[in-house]
């Protein structure tokens, strides 16, 4: 791995997994004897990252059911519900199919309700209203950050955007603050909290307020063996709504866009996952060879196959670590190279004659085979993606995106969007483009917007009116008419200063052949020429030079154009020492232009270093220590982040020595699940459950 030189200094986030596991065991053990577990389906994914079914079996779980309406029969007296405190779930539990039905049939069960992450008054109130509160023991299972990669932890909370900016339900803010406080307890406190956005401000306040209360008692739990955390950066998703609307162009990002990654799992055809036997090697071939005429029917053909969930993780699949953050255009070449190398490995070793040589070869064979299998898997996945990237709609939408980012002929882009609507392209694609147009151009001309909205409603259904209203609601305001109507004008700063940012943050990097190297040498590689604002903002804090010019530029003469092959490898000799964190310094104006509050808080360091250290200027303090050991900067995306942003941040991390990033997020998002999430209510209507 590229970052092997840093990896020993990384914060060990597997502890979080261990804690989550232990808590689950304790929670289940609080109920004596054999039990039936009824699981909230939205928790299955997150739990799958923490534990496995066998562990549950050890805790006396005999059977597991999904939490859904429909009769529940249990062979054990204990029924344990594990769910998020959603009203819907609670009503199901109380309802005629569960507790009330059991009561009617006079079957006696002992009910325990484990709420994630904490107990809720609301739940007990609803149980009370339904008249079953007395039958249920309520307790909690505090599931917080879950490691989803070795440098990414996530709350795996779905629909944060909708909850925060449409419903105004701020529960996730509190939960995030709690989770960050737990991090603080484990790894030491954050000397600085820097952030942007109103909700980021709220979370920062919650952390400092509660942190002040608890530090004195938790002084002993701080383990000094961990590398120090130098700061916490909180970015409110509202600060950069543009990035997630764009089509992600890294490998991992495209897998997410095209196939869909949920809780680090991706659904793949069975044939791809099983080691090839002659029989299904054929079927795989037939499934992936595109029809003679070439262009279309890509994704559809796959759907018929038997599918299986596959955990995308670098732990068992080292090839994935190399591939995930690459721009998709380089994937083919990379796979090709790996294939050649593998082939060579097999061959050279087959030529070896002597017995010890053969023994060595046989020993290596297992490794080669896993690598072989990984190669097969990723080639298969790429084959699934490639046809999609060749479709008309995909290329058209990319083109519109690039033009909008450059503010090139906006009204022509709107017409192009209208054409896409007429063609019946997927609604999420259309809406993403439309919102992008609004954000980049500071609103869409009222007349155009109305006619586009009308088109959308007529094509996809009038029920999406509430979705359109949500998108233009004052809190979200990612789809606005220009000029703003009177009702909006009262809210200042709802307009996003994209054109200013484009210049000040150097967002666009020309995608012409000469500039290609430059693209590869900047975070903009993740969108083939566009640098995500969110990560530029992180650079404003943690790699100030990177905002103004490409840090890799300076070493180009030395490494020649060897970089251009997309391997992203940077020789560590040319790395700069990371500068200490000094807040937004140097970019105050840029940051001030973005709507939302700016956060810059210095927390008292409760470490046992020396009492004088707390009164010291923290800047000097952190500067002095960073020289002898690497520090970790935690970047928390409030409202979720995309795979491309993770890739870009990893790239930033590789440019400097002495600083690692730990990416924390409420969940992994992409444009389509944002739209689905905001539509929320309407999608649930599509498959109405028993009312």
């Amino acid at each position: 791995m590229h970052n092997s030189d840093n990896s020993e200094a990384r914060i060990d986030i597997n502890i979080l997994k261990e804690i989550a596991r232990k808590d689950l065991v304790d929670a289940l053990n609080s109920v004596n004897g054999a039990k039936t577990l009824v699981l909230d389906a939205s928790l299955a994914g997150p739990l799958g990252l923490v534990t496995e079914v066998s562990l549950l079996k050890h805790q006396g779980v005999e059977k597991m059911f999904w939490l859904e309406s429909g009769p529940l029969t249990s062979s054990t007296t204990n029924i344990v519900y594990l769910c998020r405190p959603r009203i819907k779930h609670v009503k199901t539990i109380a309802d005629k199919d569960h507790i009330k039905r059991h009561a009617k049939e006079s079957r006696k069960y002992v009910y325990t309700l484990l709420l994630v992450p904490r107990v809720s008054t609301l739940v007990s109130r609803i149980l009370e209203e339904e008249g079953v509160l007395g039958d249920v023991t309520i307790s909690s299972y505090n599931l917080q950050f879950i490691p989803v990669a070795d440098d990414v932890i996530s709350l795996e909370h779905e629909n944060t955007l909708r909850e925060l900016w449409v419903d105004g339900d701020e529960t996730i803010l509190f939960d995030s603050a709690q989770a960050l406080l737990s991090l603080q307890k484990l790894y030491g406190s954050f000397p600085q909290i820097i952030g942007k956005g109103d909700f980021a401000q709220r979370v920062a306040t919650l952390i400092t307020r509660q942190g002040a209360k608890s530090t004195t008692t938790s002084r002993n739990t701080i383990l000094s063996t961990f590398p120090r955390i130098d700061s916490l950066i909180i970015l409110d998703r509202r600060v950069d709504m543009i990035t997630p609307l764009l089509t992600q162009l890294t490998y991992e990002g495209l897998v997410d866009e095209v196939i869909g990654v949920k809780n680090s799992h991706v659904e793949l055809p069975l044939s791809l996952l099983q080691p090839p036997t002659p029989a299904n090697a054929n079927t795989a071939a037939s499934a992936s060879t595109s029809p003679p005429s070439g262009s279309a029917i890509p994704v559809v053909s796959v759907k018929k196959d038997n599918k299986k969930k596959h955990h995308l993780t670098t732990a068992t699949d080292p090839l994935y670590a190399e591939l995930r953050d690459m721009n998709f255009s380089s994937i083919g070449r990379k796979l090709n190279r790996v294939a050649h190398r593998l082939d060579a490995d097999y061959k050279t070793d087959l030529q070896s004659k002597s017995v010890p040589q053969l023994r060595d070869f046989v020993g290596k064979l297992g490794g080669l085979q896993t690598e072989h299998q990984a190669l097969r898997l990723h080639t298969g996945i790429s084959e699934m993606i490639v046809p999609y990237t060749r479709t008309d709609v995909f290329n058209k939408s990319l083109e519109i995106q690039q033009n909008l980012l450059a503010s090139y002929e906006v009204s022509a882009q709107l017409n192009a969007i209208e054409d896409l609507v007429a063609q019946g392209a997927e609604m999420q694609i259309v809406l993403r483009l439309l919102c992008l147009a609004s954000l980049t151009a500071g609103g869409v001309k009222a007349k155009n917007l109305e006619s586009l909205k009308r088109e959308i409603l007529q094509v996809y259904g009038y029920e999406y009116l509430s979705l359109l209203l949500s998108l233009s609601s004052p809190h979200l305001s990612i789809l606005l008419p220009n000029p703003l109507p009177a009702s909006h004008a009262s809210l200042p700063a709802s307009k996003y200063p994209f054109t200013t940012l484009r210049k000040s943050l150097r967002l666009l990097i020309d995608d012409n052949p000469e500039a290609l190297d430059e693209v590869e040498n900047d975070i903009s590689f993740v969108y083939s020429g566009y640098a995500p604002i969110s990560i530029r903002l992180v650079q404003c804090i943690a790699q100030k030079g990177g905002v103004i010019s490409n840090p890799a530029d300076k070493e180009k003469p030395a490494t020649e154009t060897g970089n251009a092959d997309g391997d992203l490898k940077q020789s560590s000799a040319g790395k700069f020492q990371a500068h200490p964190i000094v807040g937004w310094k140097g970019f105050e104006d840029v940051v001030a232009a973005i709507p939302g509050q700016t956060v810059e808080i210095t927390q008292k360091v409760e470490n046992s270093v020396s009492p004088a250290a707390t009164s010291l200027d923290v800047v000097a303090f952190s500067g002095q220590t960073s020289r002898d050991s690497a520090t970790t900067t935690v970047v928390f995306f409030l409202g979720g982040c995309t795979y491309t942003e993770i890739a870009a941040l990893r790239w930033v991390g590789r440019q400097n020595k002495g600083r690692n990033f730990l990416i924390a997020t409420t969940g992994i998002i992409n444009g389509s699940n944002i739209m689905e999430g905001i539509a929320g209510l309407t999608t649930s209507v599509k498959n109405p459950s028993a009312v």
Partner: protein
Amino acid sequence: MEHPTSSWQAMQEGNVFYRKQQCYSIPGKLPNLSDYIIAGCKYGGPIALMRDHSKLIALGRTMPAVTKSQIQVYSPAGEGLLLFSWDQGKIIRFGWTIDEKLVVLNEEGTYRLYDLQGDYQQHSLGTEAAELGVIDAKIHENGMVVMTSALTLLEVKGWTGARPLVLANPGLSEPPHSWAAIPPDLNISRHVEVLLSVDTTIYTVDNLENADQRISRGPFAHVSPSPNGKNLALLTAAGLLWVVSTDFQRSMAEFDTSNVVGATGAVLQVEWCGNDAILVTWDSLVVLVGPFGDILQYFYSGPTFAITELDGVRVIGQEVCDFIQKVPASTLSIFRPGSTSPSAILFDAWESFSNKSPKSDESIRSIRPELAKAVDECIDAAGQEWEAHWQRRLLNAAKFGRGFLDFHNPTDFVNMGQTLKVLNAVHYFEVGIPLTYSQYNYASPSHLITRLTSRNLHLLALRISGFLDLKPDPVLKHWACAKILKAKATSGVTGKDAELGGDDEICRMIVEKFEELGGAEVSYAEIAKKAWEVGRGGLATKLLDHEAKGSDQVPLLLTMKEDKLALVKAVDSGDTDLVYHVLLHLHKRLPLGSFFRLLEEGGQTLAPASKLLEVYAREQNREMLRDFYYSDDRRVESAVLSLDEASRTTDQSAKIAAVKTAQKFFSEDKDRSFEAKVVDEQAKLLAIQQQLENEADGKIKFFGLSVNETMRACILNGFSKRADKIKHDFKVSDKRFWYTKMYALVEAKDFEGLENFAKSKRSPIGYEVFVRHLVEKGFPREGIQYIAKCDSSKRADLYVDCGEWRMAAKECKERNDKAKLEQLKQKAPNSLVVREYEQVLSTMK
């Protein structure tokens, strides 16, 4: 001073010693114990007494005859701590919790937890228990097991008023002869276990099952589990004492109590002395039965009451309070007559040294290798002594021994000195807590502090806290509460103004004291709550202002009916659950109108709260949400709510009605003319769809489709005219209509219709899309005819897509595009085509 061994008595041929230590002499302080039902608190705690009404008593002897039940609490030193009368239903049982609260349970399943000041919290076992009635209970430190009159068992875990759990039904037909409960923390399963003596056997019951242990020696008059829960002492009706492990696998000892000389009447108590001996009591006789059936007899002048401790047993008689225990190993090793252990020699050496005898040096030399162990043993033995005199001597001996050691960690020595100082202070008869060293270690210093504060001994508690480096917070908090209570009592007479002044003064006193003593982290909210409870609202508000943590202020503010402030503080805390707590509480209490007004007047500060209310109401109480939006003139939200209802309902007319309501709401807002218009369109569409369904006799589903889907469904089902009309009515653009119709015709495989449609006029979307779509759907042959109409530069590729290689070649030739032809040749599917292409190429220049 008497030598320690003077209280020793030997057992097992002099191998084991037990000692009876007199803690307090209490002549005449307690009433006649035999007339009372008694419950004792562990860890040197007090005893509670209640008149036993089943016993006859001579009137006018010590007390007036009261019909009401009264409970008296005495310290082990015989000091009266509390006296209160009981006005509830008949008391079934009372006992002590781990934190020295008296639990009193009545027959209606109500129980109260009294602290030593007479304040109580009341909890109930629930309606079921109340209806059935409670007949008995076993109270242990962290909960209790209750037997109802239906002979079922309920378990209460903890003392926070948690709902009782139903244990497995033992299926009894009459009450057990006797029974006992082993607390959860003493069982391997970590769940409570109940032992019931039924007929000749014992049932063990936990929350899952009821197991018959199949024993034939019963019935048992006493069932008594040991302090560690591992063994049981059972007493049969015939007076046979049988000690057995709790799983009934190993029989430990048997002893016939009927042969004890001097024993008269029934056995009163069977209590454990530590974990290895059993104390059997009769009126004025106490017999200690050792593990091998050896006995020691102790005589008392009157009835006694024994309380098991983890390292011995406390016996309270009319005159004395004694502590009986096995002599600890370290003490035994030093003081046992003729002991030659290093520690004994060290103690001897020190005594010689104090007597200036040269023998001292010789003795020390002889134990040199084991000196460290001897020192440790002396330190430990000091902890086991009751008299300060002997503690001091033993510590001096240890100190003397330490002088001869190069390296010896002084921590134990220092700690022991500190601890003994604390213990001696609380042993003092006015405090009256005869806590032993091992009990103190087990129960923790902070537990001791709680005990002191509950006796209102704040100064001592504070001094001990300081001495042991504990935080003064709990003491200060308790002190403040006590202060408020006291002030209430004195200021009752004075007028209103005086009380207001008093508020300020008390508040200032409390705050000052806290700041002075560093109790900055004391929760003012809890103290304020106390003030509120005793009816001093003004003081409560003042104290609450000093509370830093907003969330702690909320519950009290709610009870004080400071609704708005509570809501503001809750929102400010960021804890949405707390906000819900306040919201739901207020929703229940306030009339709907004022509830809404409160939220509306809150403006931006309370916006998060009203958002949360909306989230809740959308799922649970739509009626309320409608009213809420309506009362606040929120037209758009009302409209969206209607639309949401429209999408939820399956009934067609209800759906149309809901959409129309939404339209009305939108039209009332002048900024929403667009929305009003499209919703109007939606209503129109729904009406058309209804009509279409009628025309199709309900065989085709139209209702709820989008405009595009409706047109598609029309074309698919041969209502082509209707599709045209919809296009017209809904002003569908040509482009979109062409796409829709083209897709639909291909889907219906109506290629003739497609051809006619293509010819009907010049296609606004071009013809390339025709070809591409046909190819995509698997009809490349049908696509060929449209290629000629496409842009000439694309034709070659399109022909190839349709599988027409020859036409592609021809096209290239016509355009004289050699490069394209070469390119296509590379992709050629077979050699035939390649050859043909080469041929064409050769004809081109």
